[in-house]
């Protein structure tokens, strides 16, 4: 039995779908952020998988995954800072209730 590209892609796809599902359905902003991480992670995984199976010998996929991780980290940090800030000012994490720029 070979571990072909497909084997690796399937979990990635499912992870991605779960991320989408979570992003769409969750109300808590942190939960949304978690879903977002899932999506990002699935994309990262894909980069790597394609790099490995389709373009062995080069390493663009990996390099871009590295960049993506860095950016994801930055993004998460900022997002959490904002979320906490919002929580501080309105005491609420529900995304449905944070629809005004000013309170």
């Amino acid at each position, binding site marked *: *039995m*070979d*571990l*072909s590209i*497909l*084997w*690796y*892609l*399937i*979990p990635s*796809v*499912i*992870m*991605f*779908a*779960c*991320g*989408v*599902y*979570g992003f*769409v*359905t*969750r*109300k*808590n902003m*942190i*939960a949304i*952020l*978690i879903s977002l*991480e*899932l999506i990002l*992670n699935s994309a*990262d*995984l894909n980069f*790597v*998988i394609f790099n*490995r*199976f389709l373009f*062995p*010998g*080069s390493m*663009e996929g*990996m*390099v871009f995954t590295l*960049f993506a*991780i*860095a950016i994801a*980290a*930055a993004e*998460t*940090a*900022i997002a*959490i*800072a*904002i*979320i*906490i*800030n919002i929580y501080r000012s309105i005491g609420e*994490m*529900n995304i449905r209730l944070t629809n005004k720029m000013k309170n």
Partner: protein
Amino acid sequence: MDSVGNIILYFVVAIAIVVFSFMAVRTTKLLRAATYLLFVLIGSAIFYFQLGYQFLGAVQLAVYAGGIMVLFVFAILLTHNPNEKAKPLETHRRIAGAIAAGLGVACLTYALCTMPLLNGASLSQCLAAEEPITMKMIGTAFTGTNRMQYLLPFEAVSVLLLACIIGGVVVARKR
């Protein structure tokens, strides 16, 4: 023919990823969701290792599983009573999300299965086809300016991270 160990590892990790992703988006408790996410990220890191990208796996573990998760946990603890449950989800939105996700899976899986390009070599063949990636190669790739070398994005990312630090400080600052 891949080694049985590899195959078993694959299955364990794959199932873990699938299950924990699912649980991460289904659980009503945030702290648990974060924990499940951690497991998913670790699973991805194991895949990276398995695919021969050790450095990447390490970065994944360090940055994601280590750094970002800590941020999450802090955020959750700062804003939540750990026992508090998240509010119940709206049904129609849940159905819509499920349909979208299901359609996505179906669509992509079908695409993957029918794509002839993807029925290629096995992992072991691919791993054998190239020399292992060394830190030197990664360093060269990040600091060179030739083709397939990425100094400019690297610098951009570093500027981004700097901006991010400053931004984080500014945003988090008390007024």
